[in-house]
Structures are given as structure tokens and as C-alpha cells.
């Protein structure tokens, strides 16, 4: 409507803000800053790059595919899905000391743990030990909510159902005799997953909590019997279960299986022959997947990764080269500041 003109003194405020005169820092990226800056950054990057590369080189990695695609491979016999409780053995040799602590991973390829529906197919409340959700799991778990007898599945959902269930026994061959390498199954999952995020129901014995429920269809044993050797490592806080439940980002992934930290092998795997006995349960060939085991040690930068070191070296040298080019250009065409 009608705009009332203020007849009173309506002089605008004379503040730095209203007059757009706030004190301001006006950085100008000039050659004088950029060339030395680039040299510095370049040198720092080259330094980091070299360190990374050297570290990465020192990390030992050994991968063994045991899918058994080739007829000649030891695990070929297990690829037939009709065979149950199939075991196969792979022998390998380590030339020099595999420095410890050695981490024992299993790896899957062409396995989409990052499918959206797959990833959503779990019940977080159930997994945090809420008994209400034992009887009626969340709908996201579909088609693994209830079995054919209409009994609720605990833990429900595709992720739990598809838990990796190959197991490995690593032995060192000393003069024809096998010496089993002790594998440490603790601390392979995130501390927070183990201690906070996943909880068992506070009912002892744990078995009672699962009354009226059934185990996931593909599991050989119910959740409270996942680890027969260690009663504390059962239910939803079973370390292998936790590792599996943390979905991998990419279709080719590795997951930590065990650490080799104990006994004679605390310093690593000595050079020699080893045998890996695999209880082959997990079918992957139906979707053209691959299985492998990986031994690796880690450094401050984690596992082996050449990419990072090379990238740092490349970019570092690029920066140095750019600054030299710029220096030449400016030397030729003069610094504009100076005339």
C-alpha cells in the first residue's frame, strides 16, 4: 500500500558494514607468492611421496586365490555345490620373513555387498539387542524376516544370511610336519561395533534369548553358537559377524579374518613352506565371483598402496616444474610489479 515516507531524520547509519567498508584482507595471488609457494608445496609433496613409496615398498602382501576355477587347483573339487563340508588345502612358500604382525584377510570379487536393498536388509534394533525385534523383525529384512514356519529369523536380513563362512587353518610345514599357526580372532572388528553398536540381549545364557526364533537360512549354526571355542564371542558381537556386517564399499573387497600375533609368529611368518586348509562353504561361482586369502603387514600408512606415494611424487614434481616454468616466463616477460 502507500509507503509512508519517514519525515524524521532518516539518514543511513554510517557504519562500516552498511557502507560496505568493512576492513578487508585482499589477497592477490601474484607470482611472488605462488612461485615460492609452489616450490615449497612441491618439495613437501615429493618428501611425503618418497616416504610413502618407501614405506609402501616395504609392506609385504601375498594373495592366494582359492576359488578353484581351474581344474588343477586344489579347491576345484569343492566348487560342486552338492559336496558339503568340503575341505581343500593350498600350499605356498614364503621366501623371506614376512614381518609381523601379519594380517590375514579373505577377499571376495564381483560381490556386491553395496547393493542398496542388500545393505538395508538388516534390523539395527535387533542387532543392538532389543528383544522386541526378535519376535517381529523390521520389514527391511525381507525376504529373510521369517522362515517357512513363520518363525522370526534372528539375525534377520540378507547381510546376516549371506555371512562368509569359509574357515581357514594355517600351518607351517616344518620337515613334513604341520605346525598350526595360531590365529588371533580378537580386535578384527571396529572397537565401537564390538562395544557399542552391536549388543547381545542381556539374558544368560544367551541361548534363551533366541527362544522362538530360527537361525538364518544359510547358517550352519545359530547366532549363539557362532564360535564354539569362545563362548564370549557369540551372538551379535561375534567378531567375524561384525566384520561381515560392515559392508564393503566396492564389489572387490577384502575383510580382515585373523591376525597372526602370537607365539612364535609374533615377529612374522618365517620363510618356509606353509599349508592353508580351507573349509570351503561359500559359493561364489554362481555370480562369477572369486575368493582369495591375503596376507599382509601394515605400516603407519596402513596397508600397501603404491598409488598414494606415486601421486604425491607426481604432483610434487609437477608443482616444482610449474614453478620453474613460471619463473622462466616471468623472467622473460618481467615481473609486472616492477615496472
Amino acid at each position, binding site marked *: *500500500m*502507500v509507503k509512508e*515516507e519517514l519525515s524524521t*531524520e*532518516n*539518514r*543511513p547509519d554510517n557504519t562500516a558494514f*552498511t*557502507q*560496505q567498508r*568493512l*576492513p*578487508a*584482507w*585482499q*589477497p*592477490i*595471488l*601474484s*607470482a611472488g607468492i*605462488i612461485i615460492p609457494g609452489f616450490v615449497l608445496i612441491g618439495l613437501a609433496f615429493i618428501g*611425503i611421496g618418497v616416504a*610413502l613409496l618407501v614405506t609402501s615398498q616395504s609392506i609385504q602382501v601375498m594373495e592366494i586365490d582359492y576359488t578353484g576355477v581351474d581344474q588343477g587347483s586344489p579347491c576345484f573339487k569343492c566348487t560342486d555345490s552338492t559336496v558339503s563340508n568340503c575341505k581343500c588345502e593350498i600350499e605356498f612358500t614364503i621366501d623371506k620373513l614376512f614381518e609381523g604382525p601379519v*594380517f590375514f*584377510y579373505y577377499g571376495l570379487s564381483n*560381490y*556386491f555387498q*553395496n*547393493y*542398496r536393498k*542388500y*545393505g538395508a536388509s538388516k534390523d*539395527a534394533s535387533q542387532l543392538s539387542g532389543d528383544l522386541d525385534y526378535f519376535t517381529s523383525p*523390521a520389514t527391511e529384512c*525381507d*525376504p529373510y524376516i521369517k522362515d517357512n514356519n513363520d518363525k522370526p529369523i534372528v539375525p534377520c536380513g*540378507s547381510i546376516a544370511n*549371506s555371512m562368509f563362512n569359509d574357515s581357514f587353518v594355517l600351518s607351517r610345514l616344518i620337515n613334513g610336519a604341520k605346525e598350526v599357526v595360531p590365529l588371533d580372532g580378537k580386535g*578384527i572388528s*571396529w572397537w*565401537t561395533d564390538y562395544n*557399542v*553398536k552391536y549388543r547381545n540381549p542381556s539374558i544368560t545364557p544367551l541361548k534363551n534369548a533366541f527362544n522362538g526364533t530360527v537361525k538364518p537360512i544359510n547358517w550352519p549354526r545359530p547366532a549363539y553358537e557362532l564360535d564354539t571355542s569362545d563362548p564370549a564371542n557369540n551372538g551379535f558381537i561375534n567378531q567375524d559377524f561384525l566384520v561381515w556386517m560392515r*559392508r*564393503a*564399499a*566396492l*564389489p572387490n573387497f577384502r575383510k*580382515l579374518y585373523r591376525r597372526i600375533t602370537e607365539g612364535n609368529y609374533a615377529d612374522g611368518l618365517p620363510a618356509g613352506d606353509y599349508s592353508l586348509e580351507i573349509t570351503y562353504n561359500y*559359493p561364489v561361482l*554362481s*555370480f*562369477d565371483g572369486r575368493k582369495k586369502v591375503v596376507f*599382509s603387514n*601394515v*605400516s603407519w600408512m*596402513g596397508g600397501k598402496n603404491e*598409488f598414494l606415494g606415486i*601421486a604425491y611424487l607426481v604432483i610434487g614434481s609437477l608443482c616444482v616444474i610449474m614453478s620453474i616454468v*613460471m619463473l622462466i616466463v616471468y623472467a622473460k616477460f618481467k615481473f609486472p610489479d616492477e615496472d
Partner: protein
Amino acid sequence: MLRRIFNRLLGGDERRVDSRTIYIGHRSCPASEAFIPPPKFCDNRIVSSKYTIWNFLPKNLFEQFRRIANFYFLIIFLVQVIVDTPTSPVTSGLPLFFVIIVTAIKQGYEDWLRHKADNEVNKYPVKVLEDGKPVDKDSEKIKVGDVVEVKENETFPCDLILLQSSRDDNTCFVTTASLDGESNHKTHYTVPDTEKDLDSLSATIECEQPQPDLYKFVGRMHIYKSNQEPAVRSLGPENLLLKGATLKNTQKILGVAVYTGMETKMALNYQGKSQKRSVVEKSINAFLLVYLCILLSKALVCTTLKYVFQNKPGQDEPWYNEKTQREKDTNLYLKMFTDFLSFMVLFNFIIPVSMYVTVEMQKFLGSFFIGWDKDFYDPEIKEGALVNTSDLNEELGQVEYVFTDKTGTLTQNNMEFIECCIDGFQYKYHDSSSELDGFGVTYGPMSKLQQKAGWEREELFLRALCLCHTVQVKESTEQPQGQEDGQKNQVDGSVLDGEVPSAPQEEKGFIASSPDEIALVKGAMRYGFTFMGLESKTMKILNKNDVEMYELLHVLNFDPVRRRMSVIVRTRSGDTLLFCKGADSSIFPRVKLEEVERIRMHVERSATEGYRTLCVAYKCLSAEEYEHADKGLKEARLALQDREEKLTAVYNQVETGMSLIGATAVEDRLQEEAAETMEALQGAGIKVWVLTGDKMETAKSTCYACRLFQRNTELLELTVRTLEERGRRREDRLHELLLEYHKKTVQDSPLAKTSWSVGNQDYGFIVDGASLTMVLNSSSDSNTSHYKNLFLQICQNCTAVLCCRMAPLQKAQIVKLVKNSKGSPITLSIGDGANDVSMILEAHVGIGIKGKEGRQAVRNSDYAIPKLKHLKKLLLAHGHLYYVRIAHLVQYFFYKNLCFILPQFLYQFFCGYSQQPLYDAAYLTMYNICFTSMPILAYSLLEQHIGMEVLLCNATLYSDIAKNAMLRWPPFIYWTLLGVYHGLLFFFGVRLLFGNLALPDNGQVFGNWSYGTIVFTVLVFTVTLKLALDTRHWTWINHFVIWGSLAFYVLFSLFWGGIIWPFLSQQRLYFVFANMLSSVSTWLVMILLVLLSLLPEILLPVLRKPRGPHARQKKMVESSEGGLQSPRSPARPLLMRTFSDESNTVI
């Protein structure tokens, strides 16, 4: 509104409909006419509010979702609710909800204010006469036909016809300050014969249907008296009291309501102006389309690839990921469709809701800086700049053509009487105080040339000046009570005494709609003829010591078409005289030829000196002549239809055969810094066109004075004068001239297009209204478009164009012509008067000057500034900055969302096209709302990539951003490529990192949410630091929001991942961020990726260096030196006398 239409439909075809009949006091009229039941008029309720409590929600939501963007987001939201989509509806619902709620609250609050204002008006107590007694009523209860009583200083509750006034002379005074800002007192008249005895008055009013023009009203009143033929009185705007105006200097009046409520002229005038849209908005829409296409194609690609992928053996339904029964049952094509929708939803963030919010906020908040700028504050009128719309801020930085009015805009409209010429003798006024005494007897000292005209002629001339005007004497406001009497006494006393000291009279002051008139009356006063005022149709003049009385018979009003006005007065001796004053072109044809020659020279000389000239003529009317004229005038005034035309015809008939007495010259001083402003605008590459109703000579000299025309400017004239030369047909000559000028400006100077600096001849183009009409409405249609083109091309190649003798509508025509020409340049109109309103509304940006000719221009403008000189800063500094800011804002927004969504798109290739989101829902939602919104908002409000002073000094910088330079396709493609580069880098950089077995040094592995969080962290840091690199002006606010946003992101992520959230079903991000920070490799890769992304941004300005800030500094030094070299600029005489270099004119 509806009711009106309804009324019209039902109101009977037979009786409709250019007029309405009103029964005064609802009394049916006697006998003669059959009583027609009065149709229902709308009540006097003003409804400016849009909503009621009941319809607010649906109506407001409807209004909001009519906006295409909101609708799009609503659709996305609904898809998310209905279809099983990857992201929860919250991610898009929350921002949309937020936007809708905020807008609704804002609009609701505004509407509440309107309701309050409406109520105040509607419940205002008024007195309505019922059975002769005033009864208190609410204002909204007034009906058409009610007789309403209004007291002094009250505003009229509806449009009234004045019936009775408490003043003796049957007039009342009114100010329309709240309607059009004109604070002078306007006189309104009662209808004759109605003034007494309202109770017995039986009359009807027939008047036109409501229409918005404040200054037009036609009506007729039939007064029925017993046993007499009904008397008919004409009604005009002078009888109509408008709602919103205030009664002044009059104790009370009675009036009959003719238009009420929403049909009052005020209400009709405040119906919304048409929305202007800025080029930036058009660019945004174009970019949006591109992004929409990107979005659709992304979704399409993913859907296709998904089904290709699923065709591979084992991939459709691997055993670990069995389908549910429902999925198996769903039709394949329906599945495809829902997949497509899901992908759309997944990628929909590429078009963010928040961009609209941020753009709106930027415009709204940014516009405050104009109002706040103290450089725009004018101590004289105690006002700063006014922003009527914030939608066009950036348009101020894009102006290519400025159309400026002359009077009041380039010039001050502060008139001073300079000289006059009587019968060919020049009189120049030297010094007021010393020579005032001896001046009634002899005019000797006044005369520059020692020759003089006869004193009778001199007196006649001065009388003409004193009589021929519509000036009022400002009544003293010292006595608020009994003002009327006091005033009368004062005047009477002075008459009786016959001697009034001159000083108080000088102070007394005059009020008129045009400052020329005041200047003339004051001029006459200096020569001893003082206008005392108009009292009951009698004009009093104090001629030294004698009071002369003239009966004012008729005023033949001024209008811009006739360009003259006249009065008919009767002297005491009974002679009837007509005095006429007007522009020379309108007077010369109406006087004797031999008189013209004596005066013409003076007029033209005065005009070339930049003065406004008026010629004064008179005529003695014989009794018969007067009778005839009187009859004609009265008849024409009574006409209901075509009154204007009929009046004009009578005016033309009366104003003939006059004899010329003399001419006056009034100086209209240039506005402060007018020349500097114009120079700066031209330096900025803006073409300045002067559109004026004034004479060519006057306008031309103003142009020279403003340095729009330089001395070496070659003037091309296309005026009636050049057209009529050589005795050829005008059309032929027009054709010839157009071709000649076209050759000169366009064909012969190919350089003009590439560089306009070296050795090029500047051209100035002058065209007048009549010639323009010929160009635009040529006899044959084929010529019209041809001429138009030629005309435009000539104009576009001239540095300055002067269009004189323009009618208001022609001004708008010119603006429209240029606006729609090739390349659709951005136009700006600036003016101060009612005659500029049409061009202000027509141009892309309309600027009003808070000048002396009322407030209409200001009211209709987009921006209003107190002085012309403020235009320079408004365009060169504010406009430039606003444009750069918003352009950067828009580009940045598209960029940051492209590189936000691209990794999510790429991730689909690695997750089996399963629509797995890469980022957590919280990140998806917060990215645009919290993490990256504040820095760009602060940037878009505070950035000064070049300081204001530098922008003002170097006008050429303005042309750097001309033609929407920062929002054209090349920069858009640059930003898009940058976004793609960043997106690719983020995704594949992290992907290579994930080639690693384990990232932390405890050998554990990261999952998919860690992957997304790393990408997201790199993303947030990169886009924020990218903006930091672009920021050239770091105030503490910038520092605060940029570093604050990053800190907020980190803290939020820690917090979000640090708690098991009770209301979330999935704790996906629990400790993901903290875990990520524990890995050295992750740190290293993030640093690497951020730096690698920004590397081109750092290098590019360095490689572009040569015209970087140093060159700019150099320029600044040069310009300041230049400023020293020309110290004349500020203190120069306002008019340069050397400019009238006629030899330059090409004829």
C-alpha cells in the same frame, strides 16, 4: 473484483455501461424520470490482504507450488514417499518444508500487517449524514450515494464529489501527498448550486465507471428542483476528492460518495505492477534446463545400464541378495519406471532447493546496501535511496542504454527567471535589492540595451505573467485555529493598507504544479507586479501600490500536447482579456507573423544558452467572442464522452489571432555533477539517450553542458527543420536523410564496431517527436520496418542520442524499440516526473528521482534516488558488484552441486546400479543447507572483487561485465567442466585409495559409509576452499563463515557419528568419521585431492596475470593523475558557453 464482474454481467445489458448513476443521499428523484433502483455498488471495505485465516493454507500453498522449482521438489518428494527410493523422503522433504514454511510465515506476516492496515482504514470513524444529521459510522459502511462529512486534516474515506465546503468561496484545499507525493495544496470546487441546503437537494450524479487515472474524471450532475427543468452541472477532477487525500485549510466539507472501497482510484492504482524479470533469472532458467537434461540423462543411463548389467549371468539375483516376493511379481516395465524415478531422486540434488532460497536472500538482503548507502543520502530532502524491488539488483550492472529525462533529471528543475524580452527588447535582471526601488516608475535599470518597449507593453507583459498561471499563494500555517479568518484578514488588511512590505511577501511563497510558473510569478514580482492570490474567482495583483482586481473567467489548462495554457479574465473596466503562454512552437502559429520575427531571435538565443523559453501572447475578446468561447467551453466541460477532445478543440479555437507580447527565459540549472555522471556512464560503454519534451535548442545545449555532445561531435539531425528543407516532400527527405546518416555512421566506419577509440568521429543524433512518428509510422508498412532498422542502426552507432519534443508515450515507444532490438539490450530509464512514468515502467530498470515534480516517478520506479549524480555509483559500483556477486553465486551453486552428485552417479557403476547412495542421508540433506550455504551467501553479499572507489574511477571496468558476460555459455561450461573434473577426482581418487587393504594402521577395513564420508569431506573442503580462492575481499564475516563452515562440518560429523541416535533405525555413520580421521592415508589422500582440485584454480589467475590487479593499480594511478589534470571539473560553470558550435551540425 468478482462482484464487479458479476454486477456487470447482471447489471443489465440495457443500462450498462460507461456510466453509473448515483442518487445523492439515496433520495429518489422526482417525477420526470422513472426511478431506476440503484445497482449494488461494492461497499467501502478496502481489502489489500490476500488471505483469510480459512483460505491461507490452501491458497498460500497453491501460490507457492505454482513456482516451477517448488513444484519440481514437491514431485521429487512425492516420488520418494510413494516409490521405494534410495534416500528417505526427509532428505528432500526437509529442505522443501523449510523453504515453504519460511515463505509462508513471511507472507503470512505481511498479510497480517495488511489486515491490520485494512482494519485501521475500514474501522475508521466517519460521519455520514442521515436525515440531515451526522451519524457516526465505520468507514467500511459507507455506501455509494452517502453524504459524508470530513473535517480538516482528515483523509477522505472514499472518492467524494464535493457538495459543500465551509469556506466562503466554495472551494477546499487538499493535499495528495500520500497518493502521488505532491505536497502542494490543490484547490477543489463545489458543484455550483448545491452548496446550500443539502437536505432538500435532490440530484443524481452520472459518472464514468471507476478507472485508475488519478487526474481524470468525467461526470454530470442533474439537480432536480421543484417545478423546474433539472439543471445539469458538469463534474471534473476538480470536483472529485480522492480517497487517501487529506483535507487542508478547510474546516469541513460535505461530499457524496461516488466510488467506494476497491473501486476508488487509490485502490485501483495499487493493483500490482507487472513483474520485471532480470537477465540473470533467465540465465538461471537456461542453466536449470541444462542441468535437468543432465539429471534425466544420468537417470536414463543408469536405468539402462542397470538392466544391461542384470542380464549378465548371476547378476540379476545373486543368492546372497534374493528378491522379495513383491519384486518378483512386479511388472518389468513398471520396475524400470520406478528404477528411473529412483535414480532421479538419487540425483535430484543436482538442482538444489537452496539455490532459490539463497538467491532470494541474496537479493533481499543485498538490496539493503542501496538504502543504507550514505552517499545516496540527500540532506536537502532528508532521504536516501529507495529500493522498490530487490529483483533487479544485478540488472543495474548490465545496463547498456540509459534513457534520461531532461527536466528535473539532468537539470535541477529549480527555475530562475533570467531575462525576458518584450516586443523584441531584451530585459535582463541584474540585482534585486539595489534597484528595486526605482523600478515601478522607470524600467531603465533593468534594460540591458538602452532601448525599451513602451511602458504599456511592459505592464501588459508583466500583467500577463501575473495572471496567466495556476499558482496559489501558500497560506501561512502559523495559526492553526481560525486559519481561514486569519488568512483573510491578512489579505484584506494588505489590500486596505495598500502597502505591504516586500520581505514578508517574498517569504510567503507560492505553490504550483510546475516550477516554471513560480519562477515567472516571482520574476514578475521583481519587476513590481505581485500576485496576491486568488479569492472567489478574483485575482489580485499588487502593482507597486495599487491593487488590481481581475475576475478569472476561465482557465484553459496546460497540457503537454498543446504545450500552452491560457486564462480568460475580466478587468474592472469590463474588458475581457485572454492571456496565453506556451512554447514558441505552439504560440508562433497563433500570432501575427510580423511580431514573431522580432521575438524569434531572442527565443532562439535564449534556448541555445540552455534557458527554457516561453512566449506570452494576449488577445482582447469582444463580448460576442467571449460569449461564444464561454458557451463552447461550458458545453465541452459538460460532455460525458470525449470531453478531452472537445475541450482541446474549443481551446484551439479560442487561442487564435493573438498578439505576441514577449518571451521569457528561465534558467534550469544542471543537476550537481550531471556532466561527470554522464561522462562516467559513457565511459562505461553505456549509451545515453536524452528523451525530453523540451525544445531542441534547449535540450541540445543541455546535452553540450552535460558533455553528452562534445565539441567534435558531429551532430546528425532528423527534425522537422531538416526534413522541411529544400522544399521536398517530407517522406522523401526522411528516406534520404536516413540513408545518408546510415552510410555515415554504419557503413563508413567499420572500425566503429571493433574499436571506438582512435581517431573515430563521434556522432550525436538528434530526432524530434514529429520525425520519430514518421519513422515509426511510415505511410507504407514495408518502409516502417526498414526505417526502424535504419534508425536503430544509426542510433546504435552514435555516442549520444537526443530525442526532443517527445510526448510521454513516445518516450516509452523509444524505450520499447531499443529494448526489442537485436541483442535485446538492457535499458534503464531515469526520470522524475509523471511524464516519465511510462518509460520507467517500460524499461528493464526504472529509476525515479525524488525530484520536485511529485512522486509518481518514484512510486512507479524500481529504485529511487535523490539526485542524478547518484546514478553513477548505483550503476558503476553497486550494479557492477551485484552482478558479479549473483553471477558467481549462480555459477558456484551449479558447480558445487554437480561435483556433489557426480561421485554419487559414478558410484552406481560400482554398486550394480542399485541406487545405493554414496553419502549418508544427513550429508545429503545438510550439504546445501548447512555446510556450503553460508560462505557463498556471505560472498554474494560482501564480495568486492574490485574496490568501490576503483570501480567509480574506472568506468571502463563496467563494460567488462557487459552483455551478461559472467553468465554466458563459455563461463558456464567452464564451471561445469570444473565441477566434472572435481567430481571425477573425488570419486576416483578415493577409489584408488580404497585399492588399499586397510587404511588404518590396525589392519581393519573401512566400509562403504567410510568411502562416502571421505569423498564428502574432500568435497566440502574443496568447494569451500574454491570459494575462498575466489574471494578477493575478506572481511571478518567471510573468515567467520568460511572457516566456521568447515569447523561446523567437522564438529557436526563428529557429533553425528559420536552418538547412537535413538530415533534412527540405522546407525550408519556411527564413528565412521572419527575412524576415518584415525587413518594417516586418509588424511594424505584428502590433502592431495583438495590440492589437486584447486591447482588449476591457483594456476589460472597466475597465467592470466598481465591484466591482473597490478594493471588495475596502474590504471588507478593514471586516473588519479587524470583527475589532477582536470581540476576544472568540479568547479566549472554549469553551462559552457562555447558549445553552441552550430558549424558542427550537419544539415
